[in-house]
């Protein structure tokens, strides 16, 4: 069942967007919930959904030797989980795990990409928002590489 437009409109990624974008996207979306420590998606799975966190926390894990989980990032309320659905071969390269009970909107990425192919204007509007989210994540990764807390002034 599609999510209400109003629910989608509350997520920061969609705040202020017009009814057409909201309607088209809401039709491709479902409400999902994950319990604490539940795996949302695994490395190598098809990246066929975009997750918009409403409430809770998702950890992005790199699974290392022996199955050890290395948390590379977390996504909290209002965040976007999963960007690999934008880039071929559309496969997840990390695990996503709910750290605590989490509710999210899962958007069918395959349907969304097809819609954007037919209506590029819609895609452009959403890609600008998604690129901003990617940019922020990239900046965060760059600054963390500097290890500012480990440097002595």
């Amino acid at each position, binding site marked *: 069942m599609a999510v209400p437009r109003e629910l989608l409109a509350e997520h920061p990624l969609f705040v202020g967007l017009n009814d057409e974008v909201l309607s088209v996207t809401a039709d491709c979306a479902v409400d999902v919930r994950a319990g604490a420590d539940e795996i949302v998606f695994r490395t190598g799975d098809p990246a066929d959904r975009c997750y918009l966190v409403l409430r809770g926390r998702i950890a992005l894990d790199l699974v290392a030797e022996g199955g050890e989980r290395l*948390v590379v990032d*977390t996504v909290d309320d209002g965040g976007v989980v999963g960007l690999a659905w934008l880039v071929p071969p559309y496969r997840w390269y990390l695990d996503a795990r709910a750290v605590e009970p989490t509710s999210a909107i899962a958007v069918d990425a395959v349907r969304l990409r097809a819609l954007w192919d037919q209506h590029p204007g819609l895609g452009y509007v959403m890609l600008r928002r998604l690129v901003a989210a990617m940019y922020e994540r990239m900046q965060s990764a760059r*600054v*963390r590489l500097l290890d500012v807390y480990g440097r002595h002034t």
Partner: protein
Amino acid sequence: MQPRAFTVRAVRRHTADTATLTLEAVDRVPLPFAPGQFTMIGRPGLAEVPISISGDPAEPGHLEQTVRSVGDATAALVAARPGDRLLVRGPYGTGWAVPDAVGGDLVIVAGGIGLAPLRPALLQILRRRAMYRRVVLVYGSRTPDQLLFRAQLDRWRELVDVTVTVDAATPGWRGSVGLVTGLLPAELDPGRTRALVCGPEVMMRLTAEAMMARGLGADRIEISMERDMKCGIGLCGHCQLRELFVCMDGPVLGYDRVRPLLTVRGL
């Protein structure tokens, strides 16, 4: 100002290189201070260093100072034991404008040992919690085992919004991973919010810019600067930042005053 003799009464070790010393003046005279101020402190016979006061301003009889070992003088302080004598000058410098935030919202952002200079402000706010509206603490650290005052963070959560994040998680960590800037309130009331920021300079600058992107004026953001201080009283010039002396005009400075200077090479 002549140094005063203090006795180490307790040492709380946070990590291998960071400790909070609780000191009592040998003459038992309290040392009143404003949150954000620092002292020049050292072992007799060794160099003195500027260390922010991290204790409760309502308890000036017990001076608390949090030290991170980054050289010989600070290593000697971190290695102190109860009963040791230290020499203290001060307090010096400017404090956080906590009274100016009465009736409004406060966003307090700490990075690493930057929580120590902010702790006195937090303790002061918590004593008078009803005088402020929304109070948010965002605290970032390198790893979970480098977090300071962990037990107090849990107690503070009962009165203010506390979010903790780390750059790199360790097994079992269930908190946030990422920069403090990713956890700032999405929306602010620019006319009623003040921000207090302390930590590595890069972190303070990115945080202040992120707050400004949310509509907060630079004049409503305070940061605590750190520069090589030797005298603490504006004479030697080591801490000079163009026309500013960090030891006297700071260490707490309005971001509007210091913003143009932070990216100037050589300052």
